């Protein structure tokens, strides 16, 4: 059965890069969001079992999305994909319930490794 994957990033380029870097064998139904508000709307509709989440975004940032998931009791496996490389940022997102933190710029290999690490995708 395919996985509902939600890709959240304000940069169109970044979303395209994520789409192109997904493991080819991964069976996913993809929804895209360009800010945190859109992401929460999609999550409420059940469109994000797995979420690839940027942090720095207009309207509502990635921290806000994680807080929203927590406060509304939504279920989602979140991987944060961000250029914010402060150790405190990583700590904050993990404390807020994210499963992993992937640093930008990423590539196919680092994305696949992170997804495997969180147990949301495996090559076997």
């Amino acid at each position: 059965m395919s996985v509902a994957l939600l890709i959240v990033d304000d940069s169109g380029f970044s979303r395209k890069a994520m789409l192109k870097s997904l493991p080819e064998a991964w069976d996913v139904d993809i929804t895209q969001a360009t800010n945190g508000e859109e992401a929460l709307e999609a999550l409420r509709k059940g469109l994000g079992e797995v979420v690839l989440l940027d942090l720095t975004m207009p309207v509502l940032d990635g921290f806000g999305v994680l807080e929203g998931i927590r406060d509304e009791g939504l279920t989602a496996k979140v991987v944060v994909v961000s250029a914010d490389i402060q150790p405190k940022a990583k700590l904050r997102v993990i404390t807020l319930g994210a499963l992993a933190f992937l640093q930008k710029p990423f590539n196919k290999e680092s994305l696949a490794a992170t997804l495997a690490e969180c147990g949301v995708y495996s090559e076997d």
Partner: protein
Amino acid sequence: MGFTVKIEPLNEEENEILQEVINIGMGQAGASLAKLLDTFVNLSVPRVSWVNDDDFVSKVGQLVEGSDDSWSGVRQAFYNQLEGEAFAIYGANGCNQLSGLMGYDESEDMAQEELLLDVTNILIGACLMGVAKQIGKQLDFAAPSLVGIDKPIKELLYSRDREWDQCLLIEVNFHLEESNFSCHLVMLMSEASIEQLRSGLISFMESY
């Protein structure tokens, strides 16, 4: 320079890639700044736009006008495959915030100058180096130098090295845990550098 045709330096798609590449550079700058100031830095989405060198002083003036009365500026030249001059412009308010965070007294002029040079070196270095590294271009920096402290904006901007072809404006806001401080980064570049930038951005995109 004689008559030039005013064209868009980068198309929409190339600008989108540039924006993301700058975003990544600013992430590195934010982390370095957080370390220097020993605080958490909330990053915002950097706003990026282009103006012709001819319009540079009036455009930058319009952009920053009203948000502060006086400004301090630091200039740093860069060369190699990308060539130009970068300015970091800080409002009086931002300078005081920075000094306060570092525990400096406002009267300590030397300390404030040093702080501005350090912060500029971090911001411009991380931003431009981040961009150059991602797009596979070589880049070197001259030492930063102070253009002025507490001056009207135009006075700071007139003091550039030479005429450049294009100017890239990057507006960055850093929200610190204790205070807010924003600054404007301005990159002036030659036409040849824009071409290097374009080719680098295209190969960066194709790497995905």
